[in-house]
Structure formats: C-alpha cells, structure tokens
C-alpha cells in the first residue's frame, strides 16, 4: 500500500514537473511564426537564396583550410555554409584559436563559446544542378512513401519526382528516369518555381572542384556543371539566436506539391518549413521528444539506436558540437550535451570539425 502511495506521489510530481517544463517551452505556432519572420526578413533583404553578402566557410577558415573529403560511396549533395558578419566575427574572436586557448566545457567562461551572440546567423544550403536547356529531374520528399524505419531515407529512396523544364519547346514528359528508377507522372514545373542561381564561370569552377557537387552534377546531368547552368535551392538550415537558450532552428525544403509556408511570394511559396527552439518540447504524438528535420539534409541518416534521421532534432545534434568533434553521426532527439572534456563550438559542427582537423 505504501509502495502504491509512493508511486502515485511520484507520478503526480513527475506530471507536475512535465507540465511546468512544457509551459516554459515555446509553442510550435510561436516557433513557426518566428521562423517565418526571419525567412521573410532575409527575402526582403535579398539575402536569399545565395547569401551573397555572407561569408563562406573558406572565407573564415583561411588560416586552417578545411581538410575534408568525401566518402567514395556517399550520396552526393551540393552543400555550402554561410555566416553573417556577426557570426563570422564571433567565430574569429572566440573559436579560431589554438585548441589549448579555448575554454573547455568545465571551464569558467563556457557560455561564451557555447552560444552565438544576438544578431549572428549561420546557414547551410543544399543545391540541385539544373541543365541550362532541357529537363532536369529533382526528387520530391514524400512522408507517405514507404519509409525505412531505421535505414536511410535519402533522396534516392523517395517515391516522387519533379521535372524542371528549362526548354519550353520540349514536350512534357509522362514519365522520367532518375538514377536508374522510372517515375510516372512527374510534377512538372518551370525554373521560376524554384529559388535558383545562374552559374557564372567562377561559381561553375568552384562547384566542379567540390567532389560531392561534381559527383551530383554527373549523376543528374551526366556531365560536370557548365557556365549558364542553374543550381536550385532544395534545402536550407538556418541557425539564429532567440529568446530561448538553444536558439531558433529553421529548416526549409523545396516542396512544390506540399507547401505550407505561404505569404512569402513566389517561389518561396513552393517551400515547406519546420522549426524548433527546444530539443524536447513540444512533444510529438508518440510522446517522445520534439522532431525537427530536413529530408534533404537529415533524411539519409540511419538509426543510431533512437530512430533515423526522420526522427531527429536539429538542437539535439548541434548541442554536441565541440572540439574535438565526436558523435557527428549520432542521430537522436531530446536534450544532449558535448563531452565533459570537450570545448563547445557554439553549436557549430563546421567549427568543431575544422578545429579538430590536424
């Protein structure tokens, strides 16, 4: 009887604690509104889609070039990281130092290196090559498709496809082959329906020198990129500080069929958006921690024991970013923290990986 009473008291206390924590966490609608506001501002400032006035990774890490490579068998993507001025200044002042000068997590000024300051923003973009003249297939995320429960749900596994037409004289295809699979009734759109950039000589050379981008172009177009081709923005991660300690994490992807943003003008009305400010709340329908993922950037990640990339959370992953870089591929949701003997890198994996390279 006493045991039963103790269990009851424990359950009531736990429930009360959960309610209190949930009240402190932002509602999903509040998070979504904040994300839409930030994206609207970037569009109004003409920052999107190319982040032209922001710094690139190679601009920041000039003294220590990224020593990265591409696994021979990896599914390719054209990705880039962009830092606004405030973020770049913060990284230069606080994170680009010899490792021994950085505070450890156990050190006194850990907060300084753990969080980006107000006004700072970091973005990661993913692009898809589009032929200057012709029709180009683009996979479309479909969460009603036969998803793998623990394996990869990268774009090669998706069940739908769109075709971007840049040659108006070409007839609409009734089916389209992409990467060895045939798709019936593709969604046919024009170039104006996706945020895109036209490749000049410099951009073409830069992308073709990137092994992953070169591989993607040869897979999609059957050749390297050429001047005059286009790259379409298929995915965007945006990390900004907010009133919440872990910041606001906004993620968008091109979705001409299932659009949910609205009121951002064309072609931004062809995108879907998700956002989070908390690794735990609001809880999902399964009672588990909050999920916020991008199909292009996270969908391919396989299960680490807590579900695959479709059940992940931006903050859960980035909260582990620290020097030396560990657990990069661990996929999870819910609160996490860097290892006790590591040096937090403001939730930026790009910094953690760069500073961990010898």
């Amino acid at each position, binding site marked *: 009887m006493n045991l039963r009473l103790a269990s009851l008291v424990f359950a009531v206390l736990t429930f009360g604690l959960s309610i209190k924590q949930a009240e402190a966490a932002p509602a999903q609608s509040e998070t979504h509104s904040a994300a839409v506001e930030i994206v609207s501002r970037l569009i109004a400032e003409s920052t999107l889609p190319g982040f032209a006035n922001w710094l690139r990774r190679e601009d920041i890490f000039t003294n220590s070039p*990224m*020593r*990265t*490579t*591409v*696994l*021979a*068998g*990896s*599914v*390719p*993507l*054209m*990705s880039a990281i962009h830092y606004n001025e405030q973020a770049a200044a913060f990284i230069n002042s606080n994170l680009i130092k010899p490792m021994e000068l950085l505070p450890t997590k156990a050190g006194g000024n850990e907060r300084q290196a753990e969080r980006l300051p107000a006004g700072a923003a970091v973005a990661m973009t*993913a692009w898809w090559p589009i032929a200057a003249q012709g029709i180009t297939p683009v996979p479309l995320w479909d969460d009603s498709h036969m998803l*793998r429960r*623990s*394996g*990869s749900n*990268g774009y*090669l*596994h998706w069940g739908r496809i769109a075709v971007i037409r840049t040659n108006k004289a070409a007839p609409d295809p009734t089916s389209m*082959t*992409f*990467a*060895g*699979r045939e798709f019936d009734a593709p969604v046919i759109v024009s170039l104006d329906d996706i945020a895109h950039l036209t490749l000049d000589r410099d951009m073409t050379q830069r992308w073709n020198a*990137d*092994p*992953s*981008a070169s*591989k993607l172009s*040869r*897979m*999609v*177009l*059957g*050749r*390297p990129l050429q001047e005059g081709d286009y790259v379409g923005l298929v995915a965007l991660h945006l990390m900004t500080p907010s009133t919440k300690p872990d910041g606001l994490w906004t993620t968008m992807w091109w979705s001409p069929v299932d659009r949910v943003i609205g009121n951002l003008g064309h072609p931004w009305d062809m995108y879907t958006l998700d956002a989070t400010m908390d690794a735990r709340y609001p809880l999902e329908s399964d009672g588990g921690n909050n999920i916020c993922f991008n199909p*292009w*950037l*996270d*969908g*391919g*990640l*396989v299960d*680490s024991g807590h579900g695959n990339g479709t059940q992940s959370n931006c903050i859960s992953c980035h909260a582990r970013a620290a020097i030396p*870089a560990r657990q*990069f*591929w661990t*996929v999870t949701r819910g609160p996490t923290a860097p290892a006790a003997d590591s040096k937090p890198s403001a939730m930026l*994996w*790009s910094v953690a*990986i760069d500073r*961990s*390279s*010898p």
Partner: protein
Amino acid sequence: MIRTLRALSLSAVAALYALTTHAQLYGNLIPPEILANTNGNVWFGAVRDQHGGFVADATVILDTGVIEYVAVTDQGGRFRLQLPKDTTTLQVSSRCSHPAYQTDRLMVRPPRRNAGSPVELSCFLK
C-alpha cells in the same frame, strides 16, 4: 579473455558499420579522420554502351536495404565502391544509369569460395 576479444571485435565491426552507413549527405563536411580504416567488401566494375565502349559519368547505385551507396564512373567508365564487411552479395540490389542512355542489363559476378569480396558488376546501357 575470449569474451573481451569478441566484444572488441564486435565494437570494431559496429564502428566500421556506423562510419560507412552514416556517411550520407552533408556533402564535403566529412573529416578525413572519420573515414580512416573503412575497409569493407569491394564492388568494382565498368559501364559500357551497346558498342562496348566505356561510359564515363554513369551512376552506379548499390542498395543494401539499409542505405544506398553511389559511384559515378571515371573517364574510363569504371567504378569502385566499398560496402560494410558484413554485407552479403545477395543483400545488395544494384542499378546503373546515365541520363543519355537506357539501362539494358546488369551482370553481377560474386567472389569465389563464398568470400565477401570482391564483387564484379558489369552494366550495359543502350
């Protein structure tokens, strides 16, 4: 002792599997240190057209049922991939393609004496 060795070897296999199966997407963000020691079962081969000529920039995809591995052929029409050590030939479904061609047929030649590696894949496009 044996139990410890078995645990260590299982950990090593698990680590290798994790490295190779998690190395998806994120383009060029993967640090080389993470990719060290990823020796696995080798799949190699070539892609040819109907005249027997080698096709450059053709895509070869090996799907283990858990994850896809992708190679694009070099200028000689050849490719080489490594799959996790514990992946058997029968588990893998393969396909190849090039935007300018249609796939004709694929031939998979398994390794000798039930070895896991190497596997030769020949792809013919038309």
